[in-house]
């Protein structure tokens, strides 16, 4: 599974990255996490609101922090 966290380095974006890592560890998932800071790259995903979460190339979340439960459901 390829997970990308898109964020400009804002507090919410960093928190999303931390939440994703926690969830991955919790379920022992095999995932490759990258955090993309570059604004041009972020835009190339057609994402306007950060933080955003992209799983295997599909935008799952944009512009808000999910609840822990919602994130876990998304990643499983």
């Amino acid at each position, binding site marked *: 599974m390829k997970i990308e966290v898109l*964020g*400009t*380095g*804002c*507090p*919410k*974006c960093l928190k999303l990255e931390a939440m994703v890592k926690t969830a991955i560890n919790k379920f022992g998932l095999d995932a490759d996490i990258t955090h993309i800071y570059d*604004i*041009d790259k*972020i*835009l190339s995903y*057609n*994402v*306007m*609101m*950060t933080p955003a979460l992209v799983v295997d190339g599909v*935008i799952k*979340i*944009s*512009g808000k922090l999910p609840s822990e439960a919602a994130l876990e459901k998304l990643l499983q």
Partner: protein
Amino acid sequence: MTMAIEIITQMLTSGIDTLVEYLTAHVLLCLVPAFFLSGAFNAMIPTSTIFKYMGDSRGSVKKGIAYFFAATSGLIIEVCSCTILPLFAGIWRKGAGFGPAIAFLFAGPGITLLSTPLTASVLGTKFAMIKLVLSIFMAVAIGIAMELTFKDTIDPSSRTGFSMGDEEPSERTTFQSILFFSALTLIMIAGTAPVGLTLKLAMVGLFSILTAYFGYSYYSKDELGSWMGETYEFVKMLFPVLLLGVFASGLVKPLIPEAFIASVTGQNTILANTISAVFGTVAYFPTLVEVPVANMFMELGMHPGPLMSYLLVDPGVSLQTLLVVNTIIKPRKTAAYAFYMLSFGILAGYLYGIFV
């Protein structure tokens, strides 16, 4: 020694007095509903609904609509500074273009729903409404000026529009949403209205019951829950900072010589407005704190004209914002943005000062 103690006592008394003044029913009755309304906007209106209007600039009508939504979006969405940048870059490069993006850059953080009722209860309803209208016009004016100064060089074929994720199917009619948001807005208006406390409480109570009724009838438990969650987030994020700012503004007030404020900004002149607008750019106050600061200046003798200039410019821009924006647009454009913003802010405040 005694003098130092005297000054400190005076500062503390002033700080506590100011704090108590803000914690009265008068201010709370307008601010608390505003928090709930902002929370509801954030939780219950999908951002995609708003931003789809800023995604297209083909045709002048659509451009006008994009400007309108860019200039008023700040009222509906509370965006933190970290979200502003991708949105700005997105509207510029993929959406409606440079002008609307600039309008959004100013209006997004500069025009907030929360500050309007607070300004109304502290500086007067008329002042607050005029400030709101002026800042919307200012956002559009800055956007148009920037677009005319710098020809937009982005290739139109790269304007693909943008996706905001899937739009969730709505479970209620537009009419039902309007009922709910109207009732909620009326609580805020009733809380701000310049009427006696008894009548005010009665009106706030009535509209609260209506809001609760519409909320329970039309929205799911999850939606109501996320509304409360968003509201709580806003309160947690802004309220302590506001109280701290209020206290601090009361604290420093005895230290600022009244004669100085009155002599520099006591008249409505271009110079006085320039000074207060530049102060608004350089000084950085957290969201909402600019209002108690403005209140302090007014009590120290600042004329309403320069006061308006200060309040128009302060929330929209700070050096910090300019530095971050500078990473996306060239320094030349950043300088022009700061120039237009200051000029329009000074001018708008000056005109207000003449007619007030």
